[in-house]
């Protein structure tokens, strides 16, 4: 079972659980509907599109409302701590959440108590807390952008807001930063570093670089990293190797972006609707 976890930008701390689906351009989770915006909703929408495309079961979505106060995040952490041993997910994609070491420690203890550890994919706030907790090597996949890679490489930074001065001089130092992130034990088993060139890495080794098609406008569009995370989770659920899932997701995201003919003002849903076409295109390559 694929489980997708994260917060959505609504007030209230309730945790919503249910199969995810796209209905009338919104994501439906159980009886609740949420607009498809950047963040967790974009990740879920992309995963739902891929699951539908390949006839996979709908993902189980666990979301809570949080506008930054952390209360909804606390509810999510508690839900995961209490229910992971009962739900026994095979794959988990963990996304926007308020980083909190204490709660993360409880979460990772619950995960490690399972007979078979689920495949753990983390991005955004969950990746931040996974790194700072010292448990990054327990994760299977992180999907940082260049700024977040710098944060992973900097052993002292508690958040991407703090890096020791090299954040803006790094575009030509990506490979060095990848090595540092692994040396510091701040990287998951696999990294997909998103940028002008995407880097797929395993254990410090760069397996593949993807730089075509190059669509600079995607950097300005909120949610273009979230869709990659959602696609990876669904493709791993389909049975692809992690390496292949990363490759196809990175390529499909670029192609979907190109098909949407974006400007920096384009919104993420316009790109998500192009994912099936992008996957078809990759199949034909």
């Amino acid at each position, binding site marked *: 079972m694929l489980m997708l976890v994260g*917060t*959505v*930008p609504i007030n209230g701390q309730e945790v919503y659980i249910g199969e995810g689906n796209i209905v009338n351009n919104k994501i439906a989770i159980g009886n609740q509907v949420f607009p498809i*915006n*950047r*963040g967790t909703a974009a990740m879920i929408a992309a995963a739902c599109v891929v699951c539908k495309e390949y006839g996979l079961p709908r993902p189980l979505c666990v979301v809570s409302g*949080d*506008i*930054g*106060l*952390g*209360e*909804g*995040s*606390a509810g999510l952490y508690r839900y995961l701590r209490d229910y992971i041993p009962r739900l026994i997910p095979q794959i988990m994609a963990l996304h*926007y*959440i*308020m*980083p*909190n*070491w*204490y*709660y*993360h420690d409880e979460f990772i203890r619950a995960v490690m108590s399972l007979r078979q550890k689920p495949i753990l994919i983390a991005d*955004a*706030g969950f*990746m*931040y*807390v996974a790194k*700072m*907790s*010292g448990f990054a090597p327990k994760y299977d996949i992180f999907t940082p*952008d260049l*700024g*977040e890679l710098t944060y992973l490489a900097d*052993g*002292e*930074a*508690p*958040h*991407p*807001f*703090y*890096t*020791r*001065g090299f*954040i*803006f001089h790094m575009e030509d130092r990506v490979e060095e930063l990848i090595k540092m992130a692994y040396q*510091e034990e701040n990287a998951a088993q696999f990294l997909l570093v998103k940028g002008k060139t995407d880097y797929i890495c395993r254990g410090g080794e760069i397996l593949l670089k993807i730089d075509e098609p190059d669509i*600079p*406008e995607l950097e*300005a*569009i*909120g949610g*273009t*990293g979230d869709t990659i995370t959602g696609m990876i989770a669904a493709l791993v659920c389909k049975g692809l190797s992690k390496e292949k899932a990363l490759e196809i997701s990175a390529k499909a995201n670029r192609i979907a972006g190109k098909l949407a003919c974006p*400007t*920096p*003002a*384009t919104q993420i849903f316009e790109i998500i609707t192009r994912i099936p076409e992008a996957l078809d295109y990759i199949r034909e390559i």
Partner: protein
Amino acid sequence: MGLFDFIRLKPAKKVAGNKGDKKGNKVDRGFLVFENTSEVIRAEKVLKSEGWEVRVMGPPPEIQTGCDLVIEFPLIEELKILSTLQKAGVSPIKVVPVEHPLLQPVELFQLKDFGQYLMVRAANMKLTVEKESLKIVNVSGGGCPDVPYLAQELINKPLKEAPQPRDLGFTLCGYALQLAYEEMQRQFKA
């Protein structure tokens, strides 16, 4: 989630400021710890408007929870500063002398010109504005839960009329977006 509710009992694998560099220590400085990042942002606003020279910084490792800010201030001014904050209704939960170098937040900005649009990046946050209308058209980056909320509230609003991220945000990502917002305003003022 209060800052001191979840102080880590065991040290994290990597601890900032514990590498023996004493040069950065400033015994004349202290830091103010607040219940949450939103209060830090409010207190900074109050103190700066009153003319205090304070800086928002990263906390030392022993009180980090993962997404925090503190305010560094001259210790000698402690009483006056606490009084100012009390009057404004944003008292800190703790005042601590600086014993380790505090982490410096990112202060540099990166601009990307898309022709019709300008994108400003501050730390991990990016804000994009249409040049002609000065309308905010996109927000990207970040990983804290207030980012999607801030994006929802800012997008499609003119830069001058949009709420300031510091008035709605609660986290370091929200703070970074505020820096991008201020830089964007400077760009168009220039």
